[in-house]
């Protein structure tokens, strides 16, 4: 091998700085993690404090993302490998990704705080878990479907080569899923920011719980009506999102092109200046060599330990597998597992029943009326989002140039957590005399519109050129082109967008119908405000009832309406023949 030593360049310095930054960040985060729980951490609104807060928020998001990836790998693998697991896990995933997770925050916080009463750990864990619940499901689904669509001959080839299951997992299954995992990771990260403000600062039964971060910074700024601080927080958030996009996601997206399974690359290859930069740097290669050496010496050091493990390992690892190869043992195991799951489910239902049972008829009536109101707001938001995002999506998707130019911008804008803007928008609405009852619809539009726009753009961009040529060749007029080609082709994606947008709107209703800004509380009747109000007053029966009702409505609507509409759209307007 030819060796050429080059002086350490600019790229290497940058990487070193970055590495130092990561280490410093982790240390600072860890120190904060152990800080004794002072009720309502004081938030410093000076500009100089913002980078630190941004770092804290970022650390939570990244930690949650790492956990989400681990979860997705395990979950997807289990669902793809075992039919029994598949039957249980897929519906579970479907429900988990459509219920309003925000409602579970109070319970989570109280539970974790009682585990760690004197430290901030409980609160931190709760925040991270909440972000996790917004990130994990689509990752898991993506990994599962990648595993399911893996060509059989590739699996066969690995098996014939004698690869162990673990090797097949890391060298076939994960690389084959890499593209989906990265793209979905991008979406997940954006989804994780959505409730940043609530996760970092919320009131529960008159007590303030606050964690240092951009979200709490923004909420304190809102409380004090400090406009420059609000602008700073929004700026910091945008800067963080742009940096993440350029420094993490872009390079990853370009890098995973390598793991594309179908060779017919569609469209121009994405590019990333950061990855180019890294590829030119010498240091990563040296680091890889050092790592190899370290690994080797570690193995050498571990050699004395290897023999006892080799004797014991197979027994530990293989005994259960051998045992489970026996049909009766398998049946018994499966039975026990099913019984345990059923017992857990029954226990949960019983506890919920006890809680909800305390609600009277009047309260149920109020819940239902509020649900009807919020339902009509959600539908209104979906309608309004469609009214602008569908035409815009078609126009952008139709022109590759426009799509290429706007896609990154839209991605960044869409990653911005809409709830951070809610109070500002509401203050604006109050100026022009629109109440929260109607204004909440606009807020829900903010929460859900991007899903529709993204889906329509990608569907329209995927229309085969020949179909577009055909409409041009037969001289269809503009209106006819939309009616005959663009709208039908976009329809299946539009339905997918509706499902997610409605989910976002339901979730958003919890913060959109109950807004605390400039020292004044504004609420409007609705299920979302009911849930928020129950949280603030620690009214747990009402909270449980509200969450249960909202989950029921969302899941039921998904199953009955969206699902059948999706089936119909796919069979009628799918472009795959």
């Amino acid at each position, binding site marked *: 091998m030819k060796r050429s030593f080059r002086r350490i360049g600019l790229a290497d310095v940058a990487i070193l700085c970055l590495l130092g930054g990561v280490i410093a960040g982790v240390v600072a985060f860890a120190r904060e993690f152990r800080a004794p729980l002072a009720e309502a951490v004081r938030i410093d609104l000076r500009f100089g404090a913002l980078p630190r807060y941004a770092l804290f928020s970022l650390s939570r998001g990244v930690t949650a993302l790492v956990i989400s990836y681990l979860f997705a790998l395990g979950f997807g693998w289990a669902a793809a490998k075992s039919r029994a697991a598949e039957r249980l896990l897929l519906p579970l995933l479907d429900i988990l990704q459509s219920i309003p997770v925000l409602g579970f925050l109070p319970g989570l916080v109280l539970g974790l705080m009682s585990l760690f009463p004197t430290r901030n750990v409980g609160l931190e864990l709760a925040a991270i878990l909440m972000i996790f619940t917004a990130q994990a499901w689509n990752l898991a689904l993506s990994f599962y479907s990648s595993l399911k669509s893996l*060509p059989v*001959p*590739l699996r*066969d*080839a*690995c*098996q*014939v*080569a*004698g*690869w*162990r299951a673990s090797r097949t997992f890391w*060298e*076939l299954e994960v*690389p084959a899923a890499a593209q989906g995992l990265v793209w979905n990771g991008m979406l997940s990260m954006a989804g994780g920011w959505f409730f940043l403000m609530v996760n970092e600062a919320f009131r529960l039964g008159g007590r303030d719980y606050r964690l240092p971060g951009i979200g709490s910074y923004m909420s304190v700024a809102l409380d004090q009506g400090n406009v420059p601080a609000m602008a700073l927080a929004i700026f910091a958030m945008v800067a963080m999102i742009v940096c993440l996009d350029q420094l993490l996601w872009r390079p990853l997206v370009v890098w995973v092109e*390598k*793991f*594309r*399974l179908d*060779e017919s690359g569609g469209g121009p290859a994405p590019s990333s200046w950061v990855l180019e930069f890294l590829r030119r740097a010498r240091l990563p290669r040296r680091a890889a060599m050092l790592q190899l050496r370290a690994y080797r010496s570690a193995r050498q050091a571990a050699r004395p330990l290897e023999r006892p493990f080799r004797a014991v390992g197979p027994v530990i690892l293989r005994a259960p597998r051998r045992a489970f190869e026996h049909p009766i043992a398998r049946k018994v195991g499966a039975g026990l597992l099913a019984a345990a799951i059923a017992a857990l489910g029954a226990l949960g239902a019983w506890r919920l029943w006890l809680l909800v049972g305390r609600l009277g008829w009047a309260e149920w009536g109020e819940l239902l009326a509020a649900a009807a109101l919020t339902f009509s707001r959600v539908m209104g938001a979906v309608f309004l989002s469609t009214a602008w995002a569908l035409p815009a999506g078609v126009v952008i998707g139709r022109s590759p140039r426009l799509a290429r130019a706007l896609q990154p911008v839209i991605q960044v804008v869409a990653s911005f957590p809409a709830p951070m803007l809610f109070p500002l928008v509401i203050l604006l609405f109050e100026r022009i005399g629109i109440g929260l009852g109607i204004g909440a619809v606009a807020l829900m539009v903010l929460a859900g519109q991007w899903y529709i726009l993204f889906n329509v753009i990608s569907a329209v961009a995927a229309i085969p050129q020949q179909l577009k040529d055909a409409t041009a060749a037969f001289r269809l007029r503009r209106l006819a082109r939309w009616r005959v080609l663009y709208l039908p082709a976009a329809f299946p994606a539009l339905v997918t967008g509706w499902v997610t947008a409605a989910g976002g709107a339901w979730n958003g209703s919890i913060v959109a119908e109950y807004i605390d800004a400039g020292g004044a509380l504004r609420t409007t009747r609705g299920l979302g405000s009911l849930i928020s109000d129950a949280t603030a007053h620690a009214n747990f029966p009402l909270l449980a009832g509200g969450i249960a009702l909202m989950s029921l409505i969302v899941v039921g609507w998904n199953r009955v309406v969206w699902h059948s509409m999706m089936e119909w759209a796919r*069979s*009628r307007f799918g472009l795959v023949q």
Partner: protein
Amino acid sequence: MTPGSLLLEAQHVTQRFRLPNGQVLEALRDVSLAVHEHEVVALVGPSGCGKSTLLRLFAGLARPAEGTVLYRGQRLDGVLGAAAMVFQSFALLPWLTVAENVAMGLEARGVDGAARRDAVARAVNLVGLDGFEQAYPKELSGGMKQRVGFARALAVAPEILLMDEPFGALDPLTTENLRSQVVDLWRDPATGVNTLVIVTHSVEEAVFLAGRIVVFGSNPGHVREELENSLPYPRQERSPEFEAMVDRLHAILTATLLPETAPAAPQRLVPFPRVHVSEVTGLLDHLLTRPDGKGPVFELAEDLGVDYDRMSAVVRGAEQLGWVNTPGEIVQLTQAGRDVMAMDDDARKDATRTRLAKQPLFGRLLAMLKEEGTVEDEEVLADLTIYFPFIPAQSLFDTIIEWGRYAELLDHDADAARLALLGWEGAAEARVE
């Protein structure tokens, strides 16, 4: 090389699959086959006859539902370490280089460090890929990719090389070249490979490579016949002995693919072959251009550029409509066939309608429709599954709809998932006849 001791054996093997729609297909039923050392065995037969399934069973990639697979007398449990496999779709990992792909099987066999590099270099050299070690598969042509596939298999110096239509995705020139190299590899003692099992679609390929050719029949897959091929290697494709062997195999395959119809039981339901209208008329068009309107089925397949198993399905379709006869492996255009080709489109549709109404399967469906006006897809699909458990019901259903629509005999409402009757009179006439 003469066959040696017993190497691989399938004993009374049955294998089933569950289709996504719930239908259980029997891919193999009670198949027994032995492979000896130093043998080259070719498995041929129509698609869906389970020959690839048997290959996967031999590789230990699947377990039979019934019966056993033995390697040197030992029951096979898990993947067979003595075998390597070459796939039609190459099955290379796109994110690994050629060298890394070739090395895939070496680590599990405990070949490490310098020995692994040597093994890779040797295998790469054997298939003539030197210089391409650091290329990624997407940079290679199809033929080159399959060379990587072979190198990967040869790198582990397997005793048995299993090949699943290894040339199926390659162009004829590349195939020709690789095929003779396979023979060389097998005869070269340095490779360690002494036994080949190949699944193939091509008669010439089977005769060129194999010492024993096993012909499979379908619905469900079973062994029809075995043919010894003792021509000396290297085989000359233009020699009379070679041609004679090809003809013998043709005859056996014809008996499998175009069985002489038993005159008894005219009311027995026969499935309509899953072929398109345009394929049948294409065949008739081609026959018209031939002297006397006839030709051997294998020659037709070659002339029209389709494989023999597709060709025979088209011929069976034309035969069921009475437009061709098949004495032996000759396909002969009938007078009805000539007439129908002389007609204009409308008359041809009418003639097709009359013929189709006489086909027992269509006749049964028409009777159902006359009674009830419309029939749900589900009902028909369930019926088909019961009558033809070995044929994927959905694809047979699609064929029925295509022909029914072409002949303006029935109509299908995809949104309502329902069949309705069209063209009453034509059907009625057919009944009267």
